[in-house]
């Protein structure tokens, strides 16, 4: 029983950063913007979060810093693609490349330093209840944030007027503009929200998952988050499901390595990436479904005519 609970807990920990980053990117893509810089924003959040936590000694300040760093870094992408109408694919790629380089440079002084870890929730008497207590009341704070965030985004996108407006911009920015909606302003806010989420996901990596700084520690999670959004066909609850499936794959291969299964560890390590490809193929086979759900103006630059 204890082993099962522990495995479930580690799956939740592995799924949380994927979920947060993917939910953020989902909002961005629903507004019609494709930001391929998730990996870069995530790693910047990780290094910013670790740095602030290490210097102040407070993991909470670290988490806050991770969010702010991610949001600021995404602002760079927003200015380029929204104000200067650059190619979104190329700009997103350059955001990732810049983020990987910048984080490596900032992080050189942090390598090998002890980090601080966000404490798990601990409600006296309740968190010690077997199974349920640990699973529901004993996880790290970011886990609860991720679940709340998913619910909030679902409610926002499908139950509020602003959410409807955001989705309409993603489907046709020219019509939205003709109706007098401030397309660029909405997209700025969406991109910054996505950046804050990616930063938070990175902060989770360096303040909860492995409380230390390792170069390139995001290890492709930002790209997997991007794939999750496609996999989920832009629906929040499917992102939740997808993130936990990927969390399970990630943890599964780690456990398989620990159990000494006679398969080279490198093959097991490549499973999450191969799984991403398989999942993408499965979901994109159904062209009609994909076409129906993809925000129609995704990735297209928009320059308002006056």
């Amino acid at each position, binding site marked *: 029983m204890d082993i099962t609970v522990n495995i479930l807990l580690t799956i939740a920990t592995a799924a949380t950063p994927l979920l947060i980053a993917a939910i953020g990117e989902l909002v961005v893509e629903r507004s019609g913007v494709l930001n*391929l810089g998730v990996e870069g924003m995530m790693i910047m959040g990780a290094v910013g979060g670790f740095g602030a936590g290490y210097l102040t000694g407070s993991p909470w300040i670290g988490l806050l810093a991770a969010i702010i760093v991610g949001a600021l870094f995404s602002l*760079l992408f927003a*200015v*380029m693609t929204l*104000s*200067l*109408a*650059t*190619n979104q*694919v*190329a*700009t997103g*790629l*350059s*955001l990732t*490349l*810049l*983020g*990987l*380089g*910048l984080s*490596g*440079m900032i992080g*050189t002084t942090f390598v090998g330093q002890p980090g601080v870890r966000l404490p798990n929730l601990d409600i006296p008497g309740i968190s010690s209840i077997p199974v349920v207590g640990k699973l529901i009341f004993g996880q790290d704070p970011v886990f609860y944030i991720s679940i709340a965030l998913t619910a909030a985004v679902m409610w926002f996108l499908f139950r509020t007027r602003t959410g409807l407006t955001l989705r309409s911009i993603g489907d046709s920015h020219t019509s939205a503009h003709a109706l007098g909606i401030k397309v660029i302003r909405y997209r700025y806010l969406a991109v910054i929200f996505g950046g804050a989420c990616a930063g938070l996901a990175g902060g989770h990596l360096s303040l909860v998952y492995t409380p230390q700084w390792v170069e390139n520690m995001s*290890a*492709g999670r930002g*790209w997997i988050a*991007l*794939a999750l959004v*496609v996999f989920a066909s832009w629906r929040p609850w499917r992102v939740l499901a997808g993130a936990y499936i990927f969390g399970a794959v990630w943890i599964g291969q780690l456990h398989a390595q620990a159990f000494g299964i006679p398969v*080279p560890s*490198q*093959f097991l*390590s*490549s499973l999450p*990436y*191969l799984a*991403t*490809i398989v999942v*993408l*193929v499965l979901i*994109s*086979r159904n*062209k009609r479904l*994909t076409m129906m759900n993809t925000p129609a103006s995704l990735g297209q630059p928009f*320059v308002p005519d*006056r």
Partner: protein
Amino acid sequence: MRIELVKRPQRSALFSILSPFIAFALTIIAGAIMFALLGVNPLNAFEIYFVEPISQVWQLHELAIKAAPLILIAVGLSVCYKANIWNIGAEGQFIFGAIFGSIIPVLFPQFEGPLVIPLMLLLGMVGGALYASIPAFLKTRFSTNEILTSLMLVYVAQLFLDWLVRGPWRDPQGHGFPQTIQFGDSAVLPELMPDAGRANWGFVFALVAAVAIWLMMSRTLKGFEVRVLGSSPRAGRFAGFGFNRMVFFTFLLSGALAGLAGISEVSGAIGQLQPVISPGYGFTAIIVAFLGRLNPLGIVAAGLVLALTYLGGEAVQSALGISDKVARVFQGMLLFFVLGCDTLIHYRIRLIGMALVKPNGAKLEAAPKLEEAR
């Protein structure tokens, strides 16, 4: 303050030439600020970064060694990007080219002679092209997003190489180091001018590839097809150009060139397989392609510039104790500024100021001159 874009009636010829230079100048300014923040005199740092690494002949050879894979890969990628097809997994295709090409020197070291190198190069191209055919197949057959699949395959290729050199291909006499045997003499790419420096034939391949692709893009129907499908897929379909064939063509071509770069690097510069054989050439080449304006001849110049950022990164690390990651930062900034400056080709940029309030209370538009000029 607000930025407003005004569409130009036609693309500006002036800015399509100037934009890479403006971008480079902006990168230098941003770099100066960065060095100042790091507590280093920017002028001093720039001399170490951009001038010292190319002040002697043997250093120019090092520059050519670094530029060769960048140019080879970027030239292939430029064809993809012109066709609006996004292969960003060149790093993986580079690795598979290196692995395929190394089959001969690692598994058949007794096989020697003048045929070895051509065969290795050929195998390298086959390896890169095969690995690139996976995302191409998935895109054409299942319309799977090629950006994500080609990128995921980079991680898989890195892990596969890691397994090879720690497992079946490890040098039994290597004292347990994760590396293959040293390639034999006939499996090493010859140096161009052994007396002057280390530069090898890889650089020649890069120049030949650049000229060949330039001819293809500007003088052949295939090049025309690429450009039409890239700028207007609908027009391309009406002209009878197959999109799926184009996906395969661009992926196989860029994969083969990345594979050639991989085997040239391993056979020429390294001399054996190791767990890590590339300082991110496949990704830096994306920057090279854009900095060269997706034009093969521009890419040669851009490749040399980006190669210099690698050498400069190593130089400031040893001279000033700054992390060589500074090279990555320079490369990223350069791409950012290039993309931003490219906007100037198609748009005029106007800054709209907030309405200023004069002391006497009269409102004054911040940019009345510009308003009239329109």
